[in-house]
């Protein structure tokens, strides 16, 4: 019943919208301003147009005009003061936009409620159907349904999806398969375009009088528009089938990189259609422009990515707007590329890929979460809107159905795709170490879905040069529907039938990370011995360059020197600590030597693990005493939230300075430390660094966690040694220094303090600088990590990370 109510709601909203529009028209007529000028805002196809400003401006001068009229001519009857009035035109545009977005979100919600249908039919299909229904409804009411305008699509709907894909691109697999992806993207798309264009030209020549006038160039243009595999559609379908990472990155990477080819071909043929004759020079220039477009796009993206990384280095005092930098710089990269007709998609991806490692090292944990969720949210909404609008535009657009053209387009599209994949795979397999099996080839061919990009590109064609635009549109829509519905629906059972390898859902363990790095070094060494400059050699060189020069510029402070392994390890520990806190579980301390580090808390520890060397009893007692006394500072409440500051971070740099001093002292003291429990400051900066750059897949908090408890530990309460463990986690990094009395009373103390003199670097000395660290530790732990969402397993998982 709830589901039915949910489904009814958007219709209710639309019905509300319906009467408002004719109501407005009545009002317009009543003012008796000249008809044509009022007709204009309504005659424009669609409420959500590319010219909201124009219509708004139109409305205002017309209002003035109306007043003038009434002042000059007809004596207006004096109205009573309107206590309640309706002025819909004022908010019309934002209102309608919000309604559409709301509709999209409600649809998404509805699909998850009706899970039985969404198991069979992919979400994209359902959304197109909804779009068809909504379009039909609007038409039935008498209004003209909006068509997906190309500007809106390319400027607002597409970038979030591409940015989301680019920022979370699984870089390792992408670069390993880059050659294959490029060949599919470039050669495959070219083949598709020319094969299809040529064949359609032949069809047009023999196809009867209706088609004879379509020239070769028009057909080639049509071929280039429809030949590109669409990233939105591929994402939407492939995310749901959880296919193995190799296939996913191949098809998805191809759909991203073929944008350059599509852009070049499109502009090329559009220009050429105006020429009388196409010379060799034009073709050579066209060939050159491909390199300019693709490499230029990547270059623009890289520049913006580096600027963003550099900016993020200085944002330690204004953490709240960190995510905005990421979004803005990426969007600017996209727009800048579009200015010069370069490939905006490649710019966007390049900027996301370049900025990510450095930004993640610089920004706070919360900002990272924000970026992740905003990107997911925007891309999700965009995707939904695109599919709905596809449906609506189908109803709204003018169609010209020609059986021959449409059917032959469909047929040749499929044939071209299959042939292309087969031939290219045969060629590529000569160079691949892990060959692509026929099963893989089938999935790659079958996954060549077309989508909204083709539709929008066609819509951009102008009528005077391409008067067969309507026929093209119809054909494109048919192909899109076919691929999305038929191929989208059947790919899941086919994947199961063919027993294609699925994605492995587990996270990377520390073992995998260590051994993978080990193997990297090993293979680099072997390659050097053989004199073979392969993949590992260049990767190693890039890493070295990165470490030596780039990281120093782009990452703030100490983190620039942190080895990747350590960063990974701390991410893991951080995540585990959060999980532990959320689940409220307490693990027994496995008896290891370094009791000062949080790393020893492992929820998997068996109660009888005698695994590693045991601490002697009195050492354990010492540690517990230290920690217990330290815990008096851990009663922590966040201050009242100030929009401009996030509490923890201003002290980080001061802390880091103090830590560096302490590190030096400890190196000296390490040999003659009485207790093997040093005041291990070295752990603290890394603990604080653990806030940053969390692996997007890393968080899988328990579903039953409610509000995250803030750790307030009352040391006075009787506690068994075991239950101290949870609280022990917290100030472990501080190495147990008892607090000074005044801090105890003040609770949260945020004053940075100079460390006591070097001579006091001893376990038992009161270290006033402890409080920020322990409290920061707590803040880290009490940071509510991302919650388990029902969609974690669905389209919005970071793609194959």
């Amino acid at each position, binding site marked *: 019943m709830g589901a039915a109510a949910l489904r009814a709601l958007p219709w209710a909203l639309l019905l509300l919208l319906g009467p408002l529009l004719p109501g407005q028209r009545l009002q317009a007529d009543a003012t008796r301003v000249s008809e044509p000028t009022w007709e204009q805002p309504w005659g424009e196809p669609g409420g959500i147009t590319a010219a909201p400003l124009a219509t708004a401006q139109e409305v205002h001068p017309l209002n003035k005009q109306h007043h003038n009229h009434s002042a000059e001519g007809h004596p207006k009857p004096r109205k009573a003061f309107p206590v309640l009035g309706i002025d819909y035109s004022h908010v019309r545009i934002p209102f309608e936009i919000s309604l559409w977005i709301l509709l999209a979100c409600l649809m998404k919600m509805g699909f998850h409620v009706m899970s039985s249908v969404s198991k069979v039919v992919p979400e994209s299909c359902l959304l197109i159907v909804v779009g068809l229904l909504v379009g039909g409804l609007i038409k039935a009411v008498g209004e003209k349904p909006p068509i997906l305008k190309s500007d809106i699509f390319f400027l607002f709907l597409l970038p979030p999806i591409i940015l989301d894909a680019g920022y979370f691109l699984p870089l390792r697999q992408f670069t*390993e398969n880059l050659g294959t992806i490029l060949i599919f993207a470039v050669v495959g798309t070219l083949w598709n375009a020319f094969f299809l264009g040529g064949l359609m030209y032949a069809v047009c020549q023999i196809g009867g009088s209706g088609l004879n006038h379509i020239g070769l160039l028009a057909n080639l243009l049509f071929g280039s528009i429809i030949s590109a595999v669409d990233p939105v559609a591929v994402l939407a379908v492939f995310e749901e089938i959880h296919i193995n990472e190799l296939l996913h990155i191949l098809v998805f990477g191809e759909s991203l990189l073929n944008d350059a080819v599509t852009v070049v071909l499109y502009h090329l043929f559009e220009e050429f259609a105006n020429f009388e004759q196409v010379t060799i020079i034009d073709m050579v220039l066209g060939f050159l422009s491909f390199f300019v477009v693709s490499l230029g796009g990547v270059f623009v993206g890289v520049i913006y990515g580096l600027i963003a990384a550099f900016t993020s280095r200085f944002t330690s005092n204004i953490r709240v707007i960190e995510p905005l930098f990421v979004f803005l710089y990426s969007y600017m990269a996209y727009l800048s590329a579009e200015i010069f007709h370069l490939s905006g998609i490649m710019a966007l991806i390049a900027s996301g890929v370049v900025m990510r490692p450095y930004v993640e090292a610089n920004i706070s944990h919360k900002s990272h979460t924000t970026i992740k969720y905003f990107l997911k949210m925007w891309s999700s909404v965009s995707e939904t809107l695109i599919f709905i609008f596809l449906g609506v535009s189908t109803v709204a657009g003018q169609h010209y159905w020609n059986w021959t053209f449409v059917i032959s387009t469909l047929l040749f599209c499929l044939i071209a795709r299959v042939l292309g994949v087969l031939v290219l795979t045969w060629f590529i397999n000569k*160079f691949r*170490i*892990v*060959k692509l099996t026929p099963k893989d080839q089938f999935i790659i061919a079958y996954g060549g879905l077309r989508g909204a990009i083709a539709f929008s590109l066609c819509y951009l064609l102008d009528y005077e040069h391409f008067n067969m635009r309507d026929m093209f549109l119809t054909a494109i829509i048919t192909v899109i529907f076919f691929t999305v519905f038929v191929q989208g629906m059947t790919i899941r059972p086919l994947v199961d039938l063919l027993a294609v390898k699925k994605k*492995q859902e*587990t996270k990377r*363990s*520390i*073992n*995998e990370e*260590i*051994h*993978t*790095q*080990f*193997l990297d*070094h*090993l*293979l*680099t*060494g*072997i*390659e*050097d*011995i*053989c*004199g*073979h400059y*392969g993949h590992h*050699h260049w990767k190693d060189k890039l890493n*070295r360059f990165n470490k030596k020069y780039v990281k120093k510029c782009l990452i703030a402070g100490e983190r620039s*020197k942190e*080895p990747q*392994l*350590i960063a990974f*390890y701390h991410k893991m520990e951080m995540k585990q600590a959060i999980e532990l806190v959320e689940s409220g579980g307490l693990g027994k301390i*496995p008896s*290891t*030597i*370094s009791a*000062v*580090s949080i*790393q*020893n808390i*492992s929820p*998997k*520890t068996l109660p009888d*693990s005698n*695994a*590693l060397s045991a601490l002697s009893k009195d050492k354990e007692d010492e540690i517990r005493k230290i920690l217990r006394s330290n815990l008096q500072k851990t009663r922590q409440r966040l201050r009242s939230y100030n929009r401009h500051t996030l509490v923890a971070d201003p002290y980080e740099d001061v802390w880091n300075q103090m830590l560096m001093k302490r590190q030096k002292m*400890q190196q000296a003291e*390490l040999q003659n430390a009485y207790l093997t429990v*040093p005041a*291990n400051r*070295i*752990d603290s900066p*890394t603990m604080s660094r653990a806030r940053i750059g969390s692996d997007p897949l890393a968080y899988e908090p328990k579903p039953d966690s409610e509000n995250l408890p803030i750790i307030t530990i009352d040391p006075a309460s009787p506690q068994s040694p075991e239950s101290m463990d949870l609280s022990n986690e917290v100030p472990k990094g501080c190495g147990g220094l008892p607090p000074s009395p005044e801090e105890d009373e003040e609770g949260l103390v945020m004053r940075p303090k100079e460390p006591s003199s070097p001579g006091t670097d001893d376990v038992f000395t009161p270290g006033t600088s402890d409080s920020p660290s322990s409290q920061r530790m707590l803040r880290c732990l009490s940071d509510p990590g991302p919650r388990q969402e029902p969609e974690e397993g669905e389209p919005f998982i970071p793609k194959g990370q």
Partner: protein
Amino acid sequence: MRKSKRSRRRRASPTVRSLACTVASPASTKAKMALLDLFIRTCCILALLSREDFQRIPELAINPLGDRIINAFFSEGEDQVNFRGFMRTLAHFRPIEDNEKSKDQNGPEPLNSRSNKLHFAFRLYDLDKDDKISRDELLQVLRMMVGVNISDEQLGSIADRTIQEADQDGDCAISFAEFVKVLEKVDVEQKMSIRFLH
């Protein structure tokens, strides 16, 4: 006059590439003739390699695992490696081909099988050859990979955690079987392969 390692290496490269693929396989006669031919041509140059020859490769010097890799070429107690030994070690890195999987089921496992590749890597960890990666051995490797800035305690806890994750029989060390299990999701066939033939 012994030629420098670099020129030797350059000449070794085509030899390596063309012979690595034949040395481990039950080669055809033609390939064996090619092998012999090349061996005769190069044996005057590549009679024996010593550790210094390897150390002359500059990239190996900065590779954290450089020494261990070099040691992997030399068998127990030897200071020189001949051509066959050199090839044998490199044969581990040949890509696995599909057609090999079907033939030779009863023969000895080829050097470039997944298991043998992993065993090669395992031997690089396991210096004392007790078929286990102990905590100390792991610590040494970590220290080499991570550099000098990280404290011993921290590395110690990473090592502990690593062993804890992998260890299944509770002996606080990683045996070969556990090693294989941990790496089951890593695409070792692709990762540990070098295309010798172009």
